[in-house]
């Protein structure tokens, strides 16, 4: 099972000190956090993509390329890549390029984006969100698998005899996760292609995602990719730890109360009860994270949100040290509970091996 972190890349004032990082400081902090993720033994670093302040990561492959050059093992990913407003041709090219530079340590997560004005800024219409996601991904999928593409669709200028370069490393496209928080159409899309489905369930109650993940697993099997249990599921998580759980609560509460996403709403205690947010001791985080498997079945990827709401870099790095300490426990506990026949998350190596097997068969 893979463990990692994802970042939204928000520039938020620290509510306890009033300090706001500059864009440069935030961008450099994101890189430092990514390097720390590898240092403490995590598997994945994923960056968001945004095109409006107060967010900085508008250019994910630039950042991931830089991180790739300074890491050895870390898988570089996104949370999410906007399949609706990016040109699928440019996604095909950017991520194939990154794949070569990073020696295959690349996958990505598709998302639609929920910021209305971003669509018209990129010449699109948010009401066409689902059709854009479906058509653009169909083209991306084809560009990575066919050397010469003739294509005509509804949302992009046609292509005749087009070859996207560079071709995917070893002829194997990066693995794709599809992220969605409410659309069965996207779970269906992920199932159709045999891709992964990532449920960032950190802001929503569990029951909602049980339906969505259940649908994805069932349709994954329907399309002949394996049993429902063999489908590739990823989950979000959000934790804040201190050795003593009351210290964690006291330290995190002002960040929670003022957080851009859920601040000034429910109490920290209610939010912890209703969503996967866990603020407490490392053992509490271990126990809570293991319950995800009981709700959603065996899954392949767990990403935590660690660096938002104005938490200072120093605190985030301390949190990553603690996460590094509990991840070996989580690995062992998840492995001990895992049903036989459940696949690992695909990596470049496993996809290359599978492709070779297909050729020899």
């Amino acid at each position: 099972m893979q463990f990692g972190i994802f970042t939204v890349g928000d520039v938020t004032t620290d509510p306890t000190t009033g300090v706001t990082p500059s864009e440069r400081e935030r961008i450099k902090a994101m890189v430092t956090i990514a390097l720390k993720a590898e240092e403490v033994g995590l598997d994945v670093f994923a960056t968001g993509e945004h095109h409006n302040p107060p967010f900085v990561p508008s250019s994910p492959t630039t950042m991931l390329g830089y991180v790739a050059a300074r890491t050895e093992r870390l898988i570089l990913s996104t949370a999410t890549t906007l399949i609706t407003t990016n040109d699928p041709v440019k996604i095909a090219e950017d991520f194939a390029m990154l794949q070569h530079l990073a020696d295959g340590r690349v996958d990505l997560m598709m998302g639609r984006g929920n910021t209305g004005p971003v669509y018209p800024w990129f010449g699109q219409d948010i009401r066409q969100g689902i059709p854009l996601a479906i058509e653009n991904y169909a083209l991306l999928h084809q560009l990575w698998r066919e050397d010469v593409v003739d294509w005509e669709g509804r949302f992009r200028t046609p292509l005749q005899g087009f070859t996207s370069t560079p071709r995917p490393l070893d002829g194997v496209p990066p693995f794709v996760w599809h992220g969605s928080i409410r659309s069965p159409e996207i779970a269906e899309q992920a199932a159709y292609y045999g891709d992964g489905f990532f449920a960032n369930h950190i802001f929503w109650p569990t029951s909602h995602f049980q339906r969505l993940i259940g649908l994805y697993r069932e349709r994954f099997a329907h399309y002949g990719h394996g049993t429902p249990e063999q489908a590739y599921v990823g989950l979000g998580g959000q934790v804040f730890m201190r050795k003593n759980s009351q210290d964690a609560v006291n330290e995190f509460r002002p960040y929670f109360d003022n957080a851009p996403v859920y601040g000034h709403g429910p109490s920290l205690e209610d939010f912890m009860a209703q969503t996967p947010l866990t603020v407490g001791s490392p053992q509490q985080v271990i126990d809570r994270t293991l319950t995800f498997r009981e709700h959603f079945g065996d899954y392949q990827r767990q990403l935590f949100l660690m660096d938002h709401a104005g938490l200072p870099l120093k605190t985030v790095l301390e949190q990553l040290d603690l996460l590094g300490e509990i991840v070996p426990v989580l690995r062992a506990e998840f492995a001990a509970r895992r049903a036989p026949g459940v696949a690992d998350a695909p990596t470049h190596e496993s996809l290359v091996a599978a492709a070779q097997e297909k050729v020899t068969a």
Partner: protein
Amino acid sequence: MKLVVVSAGLTQPSSTRLLADRLATAVAAQADVEVRVVELRELAVDIANHLVTGFPAPVLGDALRAVAEADGLIAATPIFTASYSGLFKSFFDLIDFDALTGKPVLIAATGGTARHSLALEHALRPMFAYLHAVVVPTAVYAASEDWASGELAQRVDRAGGELADLMLRNPAKRGEEELVPFEEQLAALRGKP
């Protein structure tokens, strides 16, 4: 059949709730209904939290589901500042945009003076029209002085009868939404626009 009564009255006892209950009784007199009352006062904090977080706490989630699954709805609000109360509007702001499509709805309101009665026609009726609900022709307004008149009872019976009639003709369709298979989604895009 399921009849859900949403009451946005704030005082206890509330004249809005009293009116809503009388309307529910009038419906029950003409159709076999199971009545559930949703008191928005009890959900006020959860409603505000949902607006902030984007998801409902369990009790509110249950109320929203009950409204969505109802065969008929009575929606009653006090008139504040020439329109429905903010709490009433906030609750309906949280309803899925298609949850009331085709649903029979009876609208009702209370106020201190009869001068506000047309708020039902210029505020509540258009809101439910936007949500594609089927609003019965008789809307019931009760000003303080109406509680002493027989005319209110007549309006209550007429409106209740209209809602019962619509519910009997048009019970809610329940069950999971049909999933459109992926090939069909893709093919729909490949057809000429």
